[in-house]
């Protein structure tokens, strides 16, 4: 997958734990863990919005694109 999720970086910057963030954005820890470890296949706008709100960042701070890992040719 060419999309990299930088959730762990933003969480470290904000000094926020996975449990605390999961609580704030109303997601289960396992779902947030799927997102954090890069196993997620898609993300809802509502989830992205909640993450940006709680981590006080932009979507671009959470997501990045890596051309080399892209599955689409």
């Amino acid at each position, binding site marked *: 997958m060419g999309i990299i999720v930088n959730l762990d970086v933003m969480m470290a910057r904000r000094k926020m734990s996975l449990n605390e963030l999961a609580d704030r954005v109303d997601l289960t820890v396992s779902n947030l863990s799927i*997102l954090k470890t890069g*196993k997620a296949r898609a*993300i*809802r706008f509502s*989830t992205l919005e909640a993450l940006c709100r709680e981590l006080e960042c932009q979507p671009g701070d959470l997501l990045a694109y890596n051309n080399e890992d892209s599955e689409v040719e």
Partner: protein
Amino acid sequence: MLITGRRSLTTVLRLILDFILVLNLLTLILLPFILDALYRDPGILRQLDSSPALWPDETGLRSDYPSDLPPGSRPFYLVFLYASGLGTAWILTEGHFILRRLEKNQPFAKQQVGSFRRVALAFAWLTLVFAVKIIFYNTLLTMFCCGLFFVLALIGLILSEVFLNAWQVKTENELTV
């Protein structure tokens, strides 16, 4: 009553399939003896086949043998019935596993795809076996079964693709955060 899940209609169907599977395996084990009995008294099979026998017996007269069961055909039928019986047992076994997954509320598990592919393969095998019978001892019922098994093989193949798509959508949905 529930249709899928534990103690549902699926369970009833699975138990019926399991019972047929046991009968199938028993028949396969006893097949040589059953065939011996049938060839000793072919009148038993005549009840299933009303068409007149075309093969004369030792006396030169038409015998009690059904039209597609002439004397001396025992080796062919032994192989034919073992081949078709094993194919049927294969289908029933896969049916058992498919229904077990429905009982566990895992209708779109990845294994369902493999099971339906194997069911399609088993029906293709039955089509081949019945096609061989058409060449040697043809009846209308044999041709009908051959055509039916071919259609069922195609349906099994299509269902495996449908379940593959369903599994992909389910995985995608589960990994959407």
